[in-house]
């Protein structure tokens, strides 16, 4: 108990203790790996949105059409496929058979932008596909809901051009749940890329946490978990703040 409070007190000042394994401070180990994980999470989110926005919007605009069914099947597969399997398949195809991309590793952006991008693509796709599939579903359902709402019907009835209806009345309203789910997905990506980091030898926090579990390196594990929790809180806070920007009604309440 006493130990815990001492640790918590020190943690407030940024002192997370010293790794049993390497003797380095936990803070420096986390700081060393945070950029890699952030890079991967943001890149994965970009991939996710690139997949989700067009696919979700298309299927919402043409419900039960051929496009919609394809999108449903694709996103179902995306959600179901385990990320480690997808990662290995991507490596075998793009690094192995085709030889277009390296099989893993990490090069900082500042060192060699091209090498950085080459190594980022596969892990970003592997993580982004799952998130993208989840977000696609949300885009579709919230768009559909907005499309069916009274004010949209009114807007259409008074003869506004379709583009204006979609852009102003539908998208703006559909954005709200989308921001929530995207925030949750980003938080998930930051803390949930462990497996992908391992497969692609991506030197991020997930790898650090797993190594710490293996070695029973409690200070490091504690620090990593604390950071994951913190990331979750901060992103949720940001999402809440964003709400009031998107929907002024919320801040007035």
């Amino acid at each position, binding site marked *: 108990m006493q130990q815990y409070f001492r640790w918590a007190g020190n943690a407030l000042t940024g002192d997370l203790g010293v790794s049993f*394994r390497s003797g380095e401070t936990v803070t420096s180990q986390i700081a*060393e790996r945070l950029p890699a994980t952030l890079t991967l999470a943001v890149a994965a989110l970009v991939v996710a949105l690139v997949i989700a926005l067009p696919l979700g919007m298309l299927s919402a605009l043409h419900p039960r059409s051929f496009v919609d069914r394809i999108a449903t099947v694709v996103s179902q597969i995306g959600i179901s496929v385990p990320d480690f399997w997808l990662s290995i398949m991507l490596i*075998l195809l793009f690094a192995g058979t085709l030889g277009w991309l390296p*099989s893993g590793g990490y090069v900082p952006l500042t060192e060699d932008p091209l090498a950085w991008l080459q190594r980022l693509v596969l892990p970003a796709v592997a993580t982004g596909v799952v998130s993208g599939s989840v977000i696609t579903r949300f885009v579709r359902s919230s768009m559909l809901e907005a499309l069916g709402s009274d004010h949209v019907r009114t807007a259409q009835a008074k003869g506004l051009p379709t583009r204006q209806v979609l852009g102003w009345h539908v998208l703006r309203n559909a954005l709200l749940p989308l921001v929530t789910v995207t925030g949750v997905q980003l938080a998930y990506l930051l803390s949930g890329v462990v497996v992908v980091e391992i497969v692609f030898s991506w*030197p991020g926090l997930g790898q650090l946490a797993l190594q710490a579990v293996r070695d029973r390196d409690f200070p490091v594990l504690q620090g990593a978990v604390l950071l994951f929790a913190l990331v979750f809180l901060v992103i949720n806070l940001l999402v809440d703040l964003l709400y009031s920007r998107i929907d002024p009604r919320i801040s007035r309440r």
Partner: protein
Amino acid sequence: MRTNRLLPLVTAGVLALAACGGGDEVDTGGGGGGGGDDVLVAAVSAEPDQFDPHVTNAYASFQVLENVYDTLVVPNAQDLTMEPSLAESWTTSDDQLSWTFTLREGVTFHDGSEFDSADVVYSYRRIIDEELSNAYRFETVADVTAPDPRTVVITLTRPTPNLLEQIGAFKGMAIVSEGAADEFDLQSEANGTGPFQLESSDANSTVLTTFADYWGGAPSIDGVEFRYISEPTSALTALRNGEVQWTDNVPPQNVESLEGDDEVELGSVTSVEYFYLSMNYDVAPFDNRDVRRAIATAIDRDEVTQAARFGAAQTNQTAIPEGSPWYTDYAPFEPDQDAARQLLEQAGVETPLTMGLMVTDEYPETVAAAQVIAAQLEPVGIEVEIQEEDFATWLARQGDGDFDAFMLSWIGNIDPADFYENQHLSTGGSNYQGYENPQVDQLLTAAATEVDPAVRGDLYDQAARIIVDDVSYLYLYNPDEVQAWAPGLTGYEVRADAAIDFENVELP
């Protein structure tokens, strides 16, 4: 050696440089900082924890340190007998209590300082006085002195025929420069005498550059990059498409498919590691010799090896692999279920009998082996209850003696004393099974101080036979050490002690 799969990060490999006898290779320059293009990229499965050779217990660290530091003597690549390294020659006094080492001349450390006897005394005193991980290897050492710069004298409290193995078996006994612990941050820096010097290390890789003034002649490559790739598929793909030129991340199930693959060259040698099953002498009926012998008779090692290692191993009924000068050619058990049933009957135990077999997912091959063993013991009337534990629980239960039986392996041993003393002496620190045989105690104690190698070998041979007959350990197999590299890479040899030595490598 107290090293054991029990402590996965404990001195795994007894790593050593293949002694480069001559040392008259031409120095091509390079080194000393900026690496050139001719860098060997090696995919290893884990990141080193730190680089202090006297402190670390991690195999991942020793893979790197093997190429950075030297010891007084090193095991050769063929049969792991000790050869000169930093010591050119040595003599022992008549009473066997004093060893005098003559040191090699013209050896320099990476920082340019000259190597002499003070460095040896400093290194050994550091290990002994600070009680570092390998201090136990100096158990019989009374003192280490340096009468002159080229001479080191080690005095002993009792004859120690395996002193060379103790000081040379792996780089945990490395020679650092005098005062290195104050001058350098040895956790992240190194100052050795080896063929490569530590350049940098981060979460991605560890980089070594060639040391131009290496006493054995500078390596022909410009450096080595150890890249951490823990996923075998990624490592093998990286090897195939030329991102890396070497890897030891080759799972046994891939060996067969890789053998026919001309994009990859495969090297394999039976290692000094051994897997065994141990039964608890304090739990009935495993205290009964006939019951243990019945189990040893019912198990078919070929099937176990096939399941656990996909055949990439040598079955063995003793600990030391064939090919070692200390190998005991003894295999009394033939898989025979009728004979096993008879032994159980003779022991007077009621069947079916239940045996808890503790394994850990930390070493998945023990789980696979346990499943096969369970299937083999069932028809003779022994129901095996496989208890799969996480490693921390596993270790705790082993320490408490809370088991019927368990499976694991020991690694990194070279000298027979390391194979038998801790495990089978009645006072042995790792004798968790509770084996007690005065005859074995007497043989092992006599062998520990016997200086005639032939007599000593014979004593261990006798002890090993009794240990096998009593089933103190039920020995199963020696796994193969398998490594893969790019076709055309030369000057590399897979070693039975799993030491990774890149000194003589030439890239395709």
